[in-house]
């Protein structure tokens, strides 16, 4: 009986790279117990009609909660354009300067 030639077998290695050890989950901010009296920042990538979306979200929030205030996207700058690095470097300072309690970031689309 003829013996079928066996196909070559290849022992292969992994083509991906290891997930870097420093990429541990970041610190998690506490959620808010209530939005009444809170200051919310809108952070925009200046795309996908985010201004309209944020305006509508703001209106919905103020309809439900008293005393809310808001920090607009122009105060933060464009987080997805030529000045992104500078904007993100300033971002923590802008948050604290305005006393922001929470942020809404968008838009991914």
């Amino acid at each position, binding site marked *: 009986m003829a013996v079928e030639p066996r196909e070559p077998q290849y022992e292969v290695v992994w083509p991906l790279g290891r997930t870097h050890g420093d990429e541990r989950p970041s610190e998690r901010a506490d959620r808010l117990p209530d939005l009444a009296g809170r200051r919310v920042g809108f952070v925009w990538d200046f795309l996908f009609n985010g201004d309209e979306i944020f305006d509508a979200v703001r209106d*919905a929030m103020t309809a439900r909660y008293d005393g809310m205030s808001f920090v607009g996207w122009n105060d933060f700058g464009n987080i997805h354009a030529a000045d992104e690095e500078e904007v993100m470097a300033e971002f923590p300072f802008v948050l604290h300067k305005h006393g922001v309690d929470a942020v809404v*970031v968008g838009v991914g689309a």
Partner: protein
Amino acid sequence: MRACAAAEKEGVPAVAVISTGFVRQARAIARATGIPWVPIAEYPGTIPIDSPETRAEKSRGVVATAVIDGLLGLAGEDVGNVPVSAVAVEPSPRDIVFTGSIEQVNDYFDDRLWTDGLPVMPPTIERVEAFLAHTDRDPDEIISVVAPEGREATVWSAAVNGVMAGCKPEYFPLLLALVEIIADPAWRIQDGGSTPGWEPLVVVSGPVVERLGFAHGSGLMRLGPRSNTSIGRFMRLYMRNVPGIRQPPGTTDKGSIGQGLNVALAEDDEFTRSIGWQPLRVEKGFSLEDDTVTAMSVYAQSPPVYTGGPAEEQLDLLAYVLGVTAGPWTSMIFINKQWHPLVLLAPPVAESLAKSGYGKDEIRQYLFDKSKIESKWVEAVALQAGATDFQLSKLTARGAQPEGYPTTYDPEALVPANMRPDWINIVVSGDRGRNQNRIFVQNHGQAVPNTRRIVYRSTS
């Protein structure tokens, strides 16, 4: 997600607004950047397609509810599924992850999205080591940690993917230079999955073109020659496997249509110099003796542009095509303040321009001056992409219009289709018997042309 992570780090809770088609990508990036818990407020549907009234209704309704729930901690945590490409326990570089026939290896890799759909050469240790013999660098050297999946880009992984792409071992120094580019933060690999769907274009310049047998004549952009083809393939394969840019069923590549594979473009060095022009590597600051690779994003190409006759008539036609091919995207150019098209000139065309007294700088200036588009189309593209802040009437009213635009709003006004003449790249290559040129359109601040010198093993 970067802004979400930055906020969370400052103790400020964040929620991300993401449209339906991008939720999986957002969750994958959130996981990779260490913030899997950040709530996502989903906008149902495709935002720019909806009317303003529909956008407002959805945003006041389901989006606002999701935002509020997310900030109050009322949204359930959904960190999404683990990517198909991931493994439960990450192997060490030399671990054997699978043994099988060539067909079985390809099926195994395909099931895990480790391939590009074409058969791969099995990356055995012996094949990988054949590549490593062409560098002095330590195989375990971490060139960088690359987004979006936060994986180590190493000398070893460059060799593994080079094997898979069908490269020859002697191509390895070029592959390392390309990984250096991918790993350069200025190249912005994290934008590799953006919706324009750009594809990297590699341009090879220097004596290496002849030494490694790159095609640079007729059909230079077709699959065929192993050097051009496998090196072009390597770029995309590496972007899939190490940065992790994968289209569905992957999660991080949201290129809506996607540009197809670009083979490596090899410059016709001999011809370029014969007409008195400097080759690309010299323009990028390297010497004639150096070998370089340049990598850039390309999301579209012009039709073939046949030119002939007086130099100015040829340049007028090239300027027109540059304007209509790239011009509609001009709003993004000015928003992102980067724009680097590549004009591929046929050798006979370049020679005729040179004989008329034009060098590359003069051609760049001519194309910059003459390449225009009506401002109404610039604005239309911006608005229909949802970049609602780029309304020329408002920008002009406050004196914030882009440079070169009229100071009073005029939708019919012709405005520049380029930002700077020195950002127009010119390469001479292709059929030495034909007058066909082509323009490659680059995606603003994403993968701006980046040139690296190829470094060979010291004992080569």
